[in-house]
């Protein structure tokens, strides 16, 4: 697991795009708070809502900033340290801003055997970003190298944001995916 220190939202310059306004926020919206309470009441113990609440906070804040963690801790009445520990343990909670379209390329064994490594390099060059690095200057793109996405039989497997999940991806298909993003066919990150 990587354990990077999350940047505090307050100190970030106004970057990437639309989500900027959101990531400068400190509080969860009333709807999100209600959703978290509803989830918490389903479990035998409120603490179990930590993971779902962080997913909700990520959707609201754009990424899991320190303020997002504090807001989750407050909503669930849990120690901030607990939420911080959980948020930094799991890789799907982005601790820094990502682009509007966040490409996650699996480079684990089955995908690697099918050319995921050159594919990742081409994608990074095409979008002008570094894998795992900050989003492009316009805030539109970011790329991350991820571990097995359970699409090994249709490798290489690429996921964009949370719902687009594509398989047998080659250069041509990458272009199609990028075009679909540009046409606004995919749901942008955190929406």
């Amino acid at each position: 697991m990587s354990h990077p220190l999350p940047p505090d939202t307050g100190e970030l310059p106004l970057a990437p795009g639309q989500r900027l306004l959101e990531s400068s926020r400190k509080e969860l919206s009333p709807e999100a708070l209600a959703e978290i309470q509803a989830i918490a009441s389903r479990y035998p113990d409120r603490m179990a809502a930590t993971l779902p609440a962080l997913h909700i906070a990520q959707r609201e804040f754009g990424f899991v900033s320190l303020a997002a963690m504090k807001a989750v801790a407050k909503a669930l009445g849990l120690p901030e340290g607990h939420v911080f520990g959980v948020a930094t343990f799991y890789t799907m909670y982005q601790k820094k801003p990502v682009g509007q379209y966040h490409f996650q390329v699996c480079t684990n064994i089955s995908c690697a055997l099918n050319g995921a490594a050159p594919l990742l390099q081409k994608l990074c060059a095409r979008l002008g970003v570094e894998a795992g690095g900050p989003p492009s200057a316009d805030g539109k793109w970011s790329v991350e190298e991820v571990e097995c996405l359970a699409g090994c039989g249709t490798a290489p497997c690429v996921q964009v944001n949370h719902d687009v999940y594509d398989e047998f991806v080659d250069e041509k298909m990458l272009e199609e995916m990028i075009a679909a993003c540009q046409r606004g066919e995919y749901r942008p990150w955190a929406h």
Partner: protein
Amino acid sequence: MAAIRTKPDRHLYTFPGFGSEKFPNLMLRGAGDLDNWPRRVYEQKHEGYLGMRKALKMDPSAVIEEVKTSGIRGRGGAGFPAGLKWSFMPKDTPERKFTRYLVCNADEGEPGTFKDRVIMEYNPHQLIEGMVIAGWAMQCQLGFVYVRGEFLWLIEKMEAALQEARDAGYLGKDILGTGWNFDILMHRGAGAYICGEETALLNSLEGRRGEPRVKPPFPAAKGAFGQPSTINNVETLAAVAPILRMGGAAYANLGRPKNTGTRIFGVSGHVNRPGVFELPLGTPLDFIVNECAGGVRGGKKAKAIIPGGSSCPMFDAKDFDCPMDFDSVRDRGSMAGSGGVIVMDEDTCIVQATLRLIRFYAHESCGQCTPCREGCNWMQMILQRIEDGQGRLEDLDLLAQLTPRIGLRTLCPLGDAACGPMESALKKFRDEFEHHITHGTCLAKGPGLLARASAH
């Protein structure tokens, strides 16, 4: 919320002869058809919920006996007999009443494994039916399905299927007039391979960091939320539905003695027709690779095959005839694991493949136990040095000395999982490591496997 996925996936689910008496189709009925998931289809076309109706008329302990008779062993990795595991759950006594939980492991994190998602995508009701039967057998009050965070669309599909089951009275209060209450909750993970390990999964379910727990106490004594719990893989639970429907003895006739039934193999890597195939246990590995998956791509030969997901030691050519059941694979020095068969052709660089796998384990180690946290990192650094052409021959002995200091010395088997590929690669393909060290270059001609530039 995203809608239920309408884009067909391009997996292969069948092979010539599938569905015949020799290769019965118990787990993949209707796979590939996106309209297969609703309850109506499951009940009308696939004998759905018959097993549950039968089970709910039986005594819970008789259901456990039926599952014991079937001989089914866990499909998640360890191959532990499911019926036996269920019988460990404490029963209510006049003095003490228990709250029991059933947990379904749908983390599907093992590289090379992509079978549980097929069940949830095409037959979510089969999993629900299996969970209701298991819940009844152990008299559980609540069931959880822990799904990896990436499978958002499958969670939404499962929620829709669960609602259908609730509407039909298969979940909720007083299920089919038995007076027994049971419901199932979906829980979404957030990206951590270790959360597939059962006690780490419990911690993650409780909202903690996914760190494995000290055992004992085992989950049957103290599991989710401190209560007795049983954790089973998706495929294990889904298989319980046909077991009850056809009877434990009939299921036990499939496969081999002590290794009964069918299981889903996922074949990936350098094959012509990668896909998901349901086969009786004991089917030879070369049948799976050549007949089902169409053989190695480009007419090449296979160099190494990982038989059960990335944690299992690799096979080289002399073991390609291995019957794929738990005991035979173990006798040949590997593990049947999660049924993910990864095929590497003759042009694959084993040094790179091993480095890629070890990098995965080093990244996914939860960091609690020093042997695993430090050991996996050291293995990665030594392998990286070899891959970069700066290795020394002593490095190979160093690696060979490292693995026994990691394996069996940790709270959970993640350390052992990392040692499996490492030890087997070193034993079976030592010449490739030596060539990398002495020549600084690679014997294999294939394209690179690492996203980082290296000696290739």
